[in-house]
């Protein structure tokens, strides 16, 4: 195994990786920005090195600083986590050029899957179903987009070719919206990814976001570990994920799983990855994209399969053969992950501050992946994901009751969190009946605002009497 692994990340995933290192007797070398000097991942690591100032570009996105740290402090491997440099082909390449094991796929896999129009073309050729959309290398001008939209029919989804994390993504329902939103999305793409290239996809109403976890070794063996339903999203950002997908059947799982494995095989992929699909109400499914890294929501798959994904990814990065055959992957019970964000549950604005009165839930079937402690100052500079609550039980209904209890028990003062939102979701009949699609949260919140408005009107009337 590796002797010393540099964890090129912060927050929950850095802690997750450090814990895995400890179990495997790998020294964990953390890096941090000046804003994170008191962060939990710094305190938990065997060594921690400050690599730059608070701005991510100068620290967590600073490839030379990270490689230099690995070399100076004697690491033999680098784990990129999620976000930051995890889907940066140059970083993977720089690591390998410096003689460091990169825990992830090859740079060319990262680049290939990062180029969304290209990934679509490859999948189409490999026989993986892909949504109708822009063909070729994508579009940069409204004129081209209008042609594509005419062919596809509205509504259409505008996406950034280099996209990720919901940035540069917009739904247009008619020509007028397309004109307005195409420019907006392109500007976002330019700001976030430095690319004006966009593409259009047919927008599927009432589809679920269902993704398959892939494990692949460097000897061309690929298996999947079942699916996750990540339909509960706000603006294409996941909020709550579950495994298995509550409407999945054994037959559909086999079919989609085979498509996911095929997607990995066709490019010679290795290490962990996730193939994302839209699952339409009619049972048809369509490739959206492949994420070439560990996902935030990997924990729910770990709970229902009993397989430690981070540990597997480390073994695969060493060049080990897959330890498991497809038939050994068995789904046991159900699990949900609740992303805990430091944000105002109503306005969704980030809520940095000093954590006090912190009490995380515990007990049977309750797993917490948290970066918090009493006195910790949640910095303003990074993603507001501060913790993940993962709940496992025998079936989905039991997960819901256990999760309600755990969320009620969860205490964090000093900052606002979205815990109340999770509790509201767990009361929602459509959610409990598992009747939802990717538009669930926006409908739910619109309904909530409508109810509030009605209530306010009612109250005003009562007061006027």
């Amino acid at each position, binding site marked *: 195994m590796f002797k010393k692994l540099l964890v090129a990340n912060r927050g929950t995933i850095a802690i997750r990786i450090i814990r895995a290192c400890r179990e495997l007797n790998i020294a964990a070398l953390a890096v941090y920005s000046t804003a994170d000097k008191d962060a939990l991942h710094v*305190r938990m690591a065997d060594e921690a090195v400050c690599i730059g100032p608070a701005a991510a570009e100068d620290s967590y996105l600073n490839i030379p600083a990270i490689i230099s740290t690995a070399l*100076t402090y004697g690491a033999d491997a680098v784990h990129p986590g999620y976000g930051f440099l995890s889907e940066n082909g140059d970083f993977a390449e720089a690591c390998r050029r410096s003689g460091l094991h990169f825990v992830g796929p090859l740079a060319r896999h990262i680049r290939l899957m990062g180029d969304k129009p290209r990934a679509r073309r490859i999948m189409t050729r490999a026989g993986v179903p892909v949504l109708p959309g822009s063909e070729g290398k994508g579009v940069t001008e409204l004129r081209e987009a209008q042609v594509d939209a005419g062919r596809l029919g509205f509504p259409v989804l505008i996406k950034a070719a280099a996209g990720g994390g919901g940035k540069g993504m917009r739904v247009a329902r008619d020509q007028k919206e397309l004109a307005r939103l195409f420019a907006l999305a392109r500007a976002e793409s330019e700001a976030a990814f430095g690319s004006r290239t966009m593409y259009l996809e047919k927008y599927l109403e009432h589809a679920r976001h269902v993704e398959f976890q892939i494990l692949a070794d460097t000897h061309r063996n690929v298996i999947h570990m079942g699916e996750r339903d990540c339909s509960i999203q706000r603006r294409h950002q996941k909020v709550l994920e579950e495994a298995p997908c509550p409407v999945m059947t054994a037959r559909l799982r086999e079919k989609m799983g085979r498509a996911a494995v095929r997607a990995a095989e066709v490019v010679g992929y290795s290490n962990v990855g996730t193939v994302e699909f839209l699952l339409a109400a009619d049972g048809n499914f369509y490739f959206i994209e492949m994420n070439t890294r560990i996902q935030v929501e990997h924990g729910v798959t770990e709970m229902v399969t009993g397989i430690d994904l981070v540990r597997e990814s480390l073994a695969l990065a060493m060049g080990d053969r897959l330890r498991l055959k497809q038939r050994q992957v068995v789904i046991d019970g159900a699990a949900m992950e609740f992303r805990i964000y430091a944000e105002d549950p109503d306005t969704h604005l980030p809520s940095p501050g000093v954590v006090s009165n912190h009490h995380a839930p515990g007990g049977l079937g309750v797993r917490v992946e948290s970066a918090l402690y009493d006195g910790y100052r949640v910095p303003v500079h990074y993603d507001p994901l501060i913790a993940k609550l993962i709940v496992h039980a025998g079936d989905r209904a039991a997960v819901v009751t256990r999760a309600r209890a755990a969320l009620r028990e969860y205490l964090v003062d000093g900052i606002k969190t979205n815990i109340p939102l999770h509790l509201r979701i767990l009361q929602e009949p459509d959610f409990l009946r598992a009747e939802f699609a990717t538009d669930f949260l926006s409908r739910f919140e619109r309904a909530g605002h409508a109810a509030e408005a009605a209530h306010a009107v009612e109250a005003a009337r009562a007061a006027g009497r």
Partner: protein
Amino acid sequence: MELREIKALLALMRDFGLSELEIEDKKGKVRLVRAANSADEHHAASAAAPRSGAVRAAAGAAAPAAGLGGPISDARPPAAPELSPGHRYVQSPMVGTFYRAASPEADPFVEEGDSVRKGQPLCIIEAMKMMNEIEAEIGGKLIRILCENGQPVEYGQPLMIIEAG
């Protein structure tokens, strides 16, 4: 009153949004007043603090009052002496390896006690096989060299102390 007691009081002031605190007892008297519009103020303060290992270590010692006191692992950030008035750190602008001379055969750029000019090379930080000369940002007298030749250093780590003059 010890420094760490004052630090603990300051932490309380910050956490409870106090603008003023005054204590008088048999041990003596303390009065602390924070600038108005303190939200930005303590933010700036805590952003400025982290730089050096010294602050970090000291914070660790004082912290039991508010949350996790020290590292959970055995990781030990480099400690640095506190600065006297008029003294300034030369800090590392990057992660890398500290060298006192341009090559193994060459003489060190500077020795403790030397006078240094602004812009004079003081040491080298090797990062990614690149040799980066670190120059004095002020002129004065080199009081102390804090790192060993060949030692790994992190971003912001104090390397030397210069007395401005």
